C-alpha cells in the first residue's frame, strides 16, 4: 500500500470517529510512529483571557496534564513562541523553527524550556481558520520527533481532517443542548404575537382563555431564553420555529 493510500485510510477512520477522545486516540495512533505523542488543538484565546476560560477553547487534547495545568496557570499562551508564530498564520512548521525565528523574551525561553521538562522537546504546529474567522491552533509534540518531508505532509493533512471531525462533533453536541422543544400551541401563540396580536386577541383567535394564551407565551419566552415578548418572537423567527 502506498503512503498516500494509507493516508486516505487514516482519514476515513478519523471521519468515522464518534467522540473527540476517539479522534484524539486515532490521530496519536498514527503520529506516534513519528515520535509525536502529545496533541493539543483549540481556538486561540484572546491575550489576557482568564485561566478559568482558557480550557473552553480546547477541541482535542492529549497533553501531559501537569504541563497543561502549568501552561494555563502561568498564562504561557501569551508568551509561547509557537503560538506567536502561528498567529502570523504560517504554514505548518516545526517548533524548533519557531524557537529560532523570533527573538526570545525571557518568558518565551521559559515556555520552551519547561515544555522540554515534560518530554515535549520538539513537534509541529500549524494554524487553521474556521468559517467565522476563528484561528484553530494544532500542535503535536514529543520527546524524539523524526519526520521526513513526506511524513510531515502526511501528519499535517491527517491532523487537519482530525480537527475538522472534532469541530463537527463539537457542533453536534452544542446543537443537542441548543435544541428547544416548543409545543404546537406555544408556536401558534408566538406566530400570532409576531403579527402584533395581543394576548386577548390570541385567546379569541385560538378559542382559549386569555390566561392560557398568556401562559403559552410565558413558557415560550422562558424556553427561548428571552427577556420579553419581542425578543421571544425575534428568537423564534431566527431559529426558524415561526416565519
Amino acid at each position, binding site marked *: 500500500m*502506498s503512503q*498516500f493510500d494509507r*493516508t*486516505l485510510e487514516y*482519514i476515513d477512520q478519523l*471521519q468515522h470517529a464518534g467522540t473527540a477522545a476517539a479522534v484524539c486516540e486515532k490521530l496519536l495512533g498514527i503520529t506516534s510512529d513519528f515520535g509525536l505523542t502529545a496533541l493539543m488543538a483549540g481556538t486561540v484565546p484572546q491575550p489576557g483571557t482568564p485561566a478559568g476560560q482558557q480550557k473552553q477553547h480546547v477541541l482535542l487534547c492529549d497533553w501531559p496534564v501537569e504541563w497543561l495545568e502549568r501552561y494555563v496557570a502561568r498564562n504561557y499562551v501569551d508568551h509561547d513562541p509557537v503560538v506567536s508564530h502561528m498567529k502570523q498564520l504560517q*504554514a505548518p512548521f516545526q517548533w524548533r523553527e519557531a524557537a529560532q525565528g523570533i527573538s526570545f523574551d525571557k518568558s518565551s525561553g521559559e515556555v520552551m524550556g519547561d515544555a522540554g521538562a515534560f518530554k515535549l522537546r520538539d513537534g509541529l504546529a*500549524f*494554524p*487553521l*481558520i*474556521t*468559517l*467565522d*474567522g*476563528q*484561528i*484553530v491552533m494544532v500542535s503535536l509534540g514529543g520527546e524524539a520527533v523524526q519526520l521526513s518531508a*513526506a511524513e510531515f*505532509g*502526511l501528519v*499535517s*493533512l491527517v491532523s*487537519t*481532517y482530525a*480537527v*475538522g*471531525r472534532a*469541530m*463537527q462533533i463539537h*457542533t453536534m453536541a452544542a446543537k443537542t443542548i441548543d435544541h428547544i422543544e416548543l409545543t404546537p400551541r406555544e408556536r401558534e401563540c408566538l406566530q400570532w404575537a409576531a403579527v402584533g396580536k395581543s394576548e386577548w386577541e390570541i385567546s379569541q383567535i385560538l378559542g382559549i382563555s386569555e390566561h392560557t394564551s398568556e401562559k403559552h407565551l410565558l413558557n415560550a419566552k422562558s424556553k427561548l431564553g428571552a427577556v420579553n415578548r419581542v425578543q421571544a418572537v425575534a428568537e423564534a423567527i*431566527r431559529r*426558524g420555529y415561526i416565519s
Partner: protein
Amino acid sequence: MLFCLTTQELMERPDLWEAVHRLRYQIFVEEMGWEDLRRPDGFEVDQFDHDEAVHQIVIRGNEVAGYQRMLPTTRPHLLTEVLADLSEGTPPSGPNIWELTRYAVAPGFRDGRRGVSTVGTELIAGFVEWGLKRGVDKVIIEFEPMWVLRALQLHFLATPLGYQRTYGNQQVVATLLSFNEHTLDVVRSRRNHHAPVLARGYPDMFGQRRAS
C-alpha cells in the same frame, strides 16, 4: 443573486465579461501573484475559458462581488494540465464531477478580517444548488488547507487527492468534495438564509438602474 453563464453567454455581455476578467486579474495576478497570467490588458483569461466552462457570478448592487468557474472533468482541466503534481495517481473524473476554479470575492465584499464573507458563502451555496440541479455531486478544488476544515464544518464529505504543496507563498491541496441535500441545508443555515441563490437569465446592464 448568483448567475450561471456559459462562456458564450458571458461574451454576449461585454460589460459583464470585462468586469469578470478584470476581477480575476486583480485577484489572481495582482493580489496572489500568479505571474504566468500577467498580461498588458489587465484581463485574466486562460485556455479553460472554453465553451463548456460555467461562470458563476455573484452580483451585489451593480457590481461583480464574487466569481467562480466550473470546468467539466470530462475534458482537460487544471488538475490534469496545470496542477498535475497536486494529484497522487489519476484524478477522478466523470459527468457528475466538476472542477471549481478561480474562487474569488472582490475586496469590497470581504466582511471580516479572516472569516468567509456572505458573498463567499453565497458562492458555496451557489455551486451546491447548481450541482444538485444537474446531477453533479462532486467538485474538485485546489485550495488552501484551511478550507478543508471549513468544508468539513459545512458537512461536505472531503477526500484529499494528494498532499499539500507550496506555490509561491501559498499552500495548496487538491480535494474532492462530495455533497447532497443535507450539505445544502447546512450551508443555508450557516448563512441564515434559506432561499435559493441561483438566478435565471442575466444581471442588469452595469451602470443602469432597474426600470421597475
